[in-house]
């Protein structure tokens, strides 16, 4: 398996519902980041959670991090049609790494 793996690969929900996406990783990390990508566009940073943090909020986004399980989750509450996008987690892979490694992504579709 790869460093960052999101689950599920695709998620379709009704507007107003909550969406939860999960990310698992293999190595020790410093921080974990979540990004959003609208179709055909660049990635947009959503939130960064440090390895010594367990939960972080930003607006309708809630991110958790469990370093013992090497996993993170992204919760979007009260989803909107505009939240339709792909969501990626990204991590460093070792101390001093000069890159982020992205997972496969979760394709989220919000149905009106």
């Amino acid at each position, binding site marked *: 398996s790869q460093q960052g793996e999101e689950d599920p690969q695709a998620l379709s929900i009704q507007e107003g519902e909550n969406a939860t996406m999960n990310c698992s990783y293999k190595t020790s990390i410093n921080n974990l980041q979540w990004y959003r990508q609208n179709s055909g566009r660049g990635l947009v940073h959503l939130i960064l959670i440090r390895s010594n943090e367990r939960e972080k909020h930003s607006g309708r986004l809630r991110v958790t991090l469990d370093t013992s399980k090497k996993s993170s989750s992204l919760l979007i509450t009260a989803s909107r049609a505009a939240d339709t996008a792909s969501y*990626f987690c990204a991590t460093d892979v070792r101390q001093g*790494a*000069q890159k982020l490694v992205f997972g496969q992504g979760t394709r989220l579709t919000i149905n009106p």
Partner: protein
Amino acid sequence: EPEVTQTPSHQVTQMGQEVILRCVPISNHLYFYWYRQILGQKVEFLVSFYNNEISEKSEIFDDQFSVERPDGSNFTLKIRSTKLEDSAMYFCASSREIPYNSPLHFGNGTRLTVT
């Protein structure tokens, strides 16, 4: 808000030709990157660049690829002899600090089509 800009948005080239993809990172950022994304697949790291030299590169970034920051503002990716499998979206990104400590800011990409 400052943003990363990439040109062109779409480049079509014939196999074996050289292409140069251009990027203008955010001005006070110190770390620069190229990623690529083959249609429908994951975003793959190509190379990172700091202090005017390559700091890390992936297995994809072979001798056919090179990067340059020629004038302190532009950041370019050159593919010397394109192959069909180089067809992908190429994203430039920059960050103020080392990547695990700082968000990456991405451009909207250049779609490269090799025929």
